[in-house]
């Protein structure tokens, strides 16, 4: 189909192709491209949310936010959360995948149980964890106290660094199944003879993991890490519902900051500016990921 001269049929085919993609393009323009452009436009105004009255301020919002400590601390918090939860997800995820790759009893039941947290609603996950974390009646405090680990109930969500650790842990619990499934799929494609060869060479299980498994997983891990980094970076529900960004602003990531500006401080223009900046930061990750998948594609 690469010839310069196209047959009538081919031309008709590309017409048909365009026709079939038209609904997608229309929807994309209406609900994604247009809002995206207007987000940038809105960020140039000062807008009072309840009345939506705006005045043009140019780049003032950006100037203010870059000069404001809150942006930088939120960005830092955002990075701590992303790196923390992502690391745990990868470690637990790969570990669990290795375990599930073995022939354990009731393997498919085990796999369902592991998969479940990923699919339940964040609202449900947060409610359950808040109940586990409860200071007075929570089972976690009780178990830890009866095991003699602590003498006094812990405050999981209200003080630092507990709040950050808790959020990171819940995030890891909720999202590590993604890594498990992705890695498991890849593990199943590693040819057995590689392990055989390593065994003949006298490699133990740990050496086999580092010499055979890990190199084979490298590609898939890079993709998973990029994807999860992007998704964790923009996570809103989990943190918003667990801590609301508190104590003070210790767990306030950028998406929470956008929400707060827009609907608690009623500054929609400023909120848009935060959102745009946040997108620019994410663009770095996104470009790396997209490059990666496209080079694989071709």
């Amino acid at each position: 189909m690469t010839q310069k001269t196209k047959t009538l049929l081919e031309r008709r085919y590309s017409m048909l192709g365009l026709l079939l993609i038209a609904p997608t393009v229309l929807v994309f323009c209406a609900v994604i491209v247009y809002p995206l452009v207007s987000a940038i436009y809105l960020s140039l105004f000062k807008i009072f949310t309840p009345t939506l009255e705006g005045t043009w301020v140019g780049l003032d919002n950006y100037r203010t936010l870059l000069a404001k400590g809150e942006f930088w601390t939120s960005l830092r918090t955002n990075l701590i959360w992303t790196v923390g939860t992502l690391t745990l997800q990868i470690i637990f995820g790969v570990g669990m995948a290795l375990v599930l790759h073995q022939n354990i009893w009731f393997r498919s039941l085990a796999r369902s149980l592991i998969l479940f947290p990923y699919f339940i609603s964040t609202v449900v996950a947060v409610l359950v964890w808040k109940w586990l974390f409860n200071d007075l009646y929570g089972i976690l405090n009780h178990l830890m106290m009866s095991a003699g680990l602590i003498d006094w109930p812990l405050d999981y969500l209200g003080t630092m660094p507990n709040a950050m650790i808790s959020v990171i842990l819940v995030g890891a619990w909720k999202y590590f199944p993604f890594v498990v499934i992705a890695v498991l799929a890849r593990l199943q494609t590693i040819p057995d003879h590689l392990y055989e060869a390593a065994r003949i060479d006298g490699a133990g299980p740990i050496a086999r993991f580092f010499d055979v498994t890990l190199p084979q997983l490298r590609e898939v891990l890079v993709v998973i890490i990029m994807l999860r980094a992007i998704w964790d970076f923009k996570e809103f529900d989990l943190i918003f519902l667990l801590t609301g960004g508190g104590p003070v602003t210790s767990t306030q990531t950028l998406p929470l900051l956008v929400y707060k500006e827009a609907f608690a401080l009623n500054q929609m223009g400023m909120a848009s500016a935060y959102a745009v900046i946040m997108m620019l930061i994410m663009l770095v990750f996104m470009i790396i990921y997209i490059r990666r998948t496209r080079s694989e594609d071709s």
Partner: protein
Amino acid sequence: MKNSSMFGHRISRRGALKGMAATTAMASLPLPAMAQETTIRWWSPQAAPAQVDAYMAQIAAFEAANPGVKVVFETTSDEGYAPQLAAAFSSGEVPDIVTHLPSFAIQSYYANGLVEPFNDVIEAIGPDDYFDGANDVFRAADGNYVGTGIGNSAANMLWLRKDLMEEAEIADAPRTWDELRAACQAMQKGGIFGAPLPYGRNSMTTLIFVGVIHQAGGQIFDTDLNVALDTQATRDALEFYASMRELCPPGATNYSWGEAITAFVSGATATGIYTGRVLGNVNAQNPPIADSVTCVRYPTASTDIPAWTFNDFPSVFIPKQSSNIDVAEAFAASLFNPDGYIQQLHAAPGHVLPVLKSINENPQYQANEIIQKYPGEVELMAQAAAGGFNLGYESAAHQSNEKAGEVVGSGVIADMVQRVVLNGENADQVIGDTTKAIEDIMAG
């Protein structure tokens, strides 16, 4: 979405409203016959099941008197109403009537032209029936009323367990902070904590801590609404609040109203801080302690500082963008009909206290198990609430503060508490930052 013009001339209905005011009876106001179904939406954060039942009865009565009108009740929440209303106002999809929001919230909305003046409805209810000054907090700078009180509440009563006090050999209810701290220390044992003070990043912490500053003899704004936070009183208040931290459950760092009341009612804390709702909840959920609960006004730094009761002045108001203002006004007036109003108050006895003299004296209102079981407590709360204040109305001498809602909504005061108490930051620095943040909000 239907325009209000379809309900005939507003002028003539205003006349009808005034006519109603002459009579003391507050039967539902007649509305012109509806050409078609009209639905109005009613929001309130006060939505315990018993309260919703009472609202349903009031709705049924109104719907029966006004065929063609339908009222839909929807729940909002104390922590969530601000963003929800912000979204509602900006989308134009507003509720037609909102009840039980604190008075300062409406003042902010009114100042931005989002609220319909309420003068006619107050006329219809009968301005003389209100307790003296009950509507002062709702007067806007332009002289109009932005809403009215649907009740009073004394939100920072100190709740006590007489049984635990006896065990700890405490004879009298604490009057000062030192006494309170000592009492909490004496009662904190066996898995029971001293107090459930809120340290969360939420509006309860803000509202309670505004009270604590006043209990130290301070204020947030002076009478001309300049920020007056940088005082010794604020430092004392922070110091007291920090010293109470170890007497509160570990999770108090995230406490808001729900956690605070549940902690006291379930018996996990020896003292409580809440409105009279405690009475109903204790009797329903934890009867064994029901005979030993009592309340006093929250202690102050020293005996020469008078008690300061936080009354959020639960309100009724009508958003200007409502397309059925006439119906909403008639419905608002009907909420004060004795039968329905009393049932509504009885749904949480002692929690929302009546604003109308005729209701308070009404034998039907007094004939309630809980009100009769705790006459002293209910009377004390009624008095305390009537002399109560809030951030929009810090004292009778203060100007009305249109930005109070935003100051509360921004959470800067809760942030101040968290930074000093939880993070141990330097109080002077934090008070300076907070002063600046509030000044920014005032400058708007």
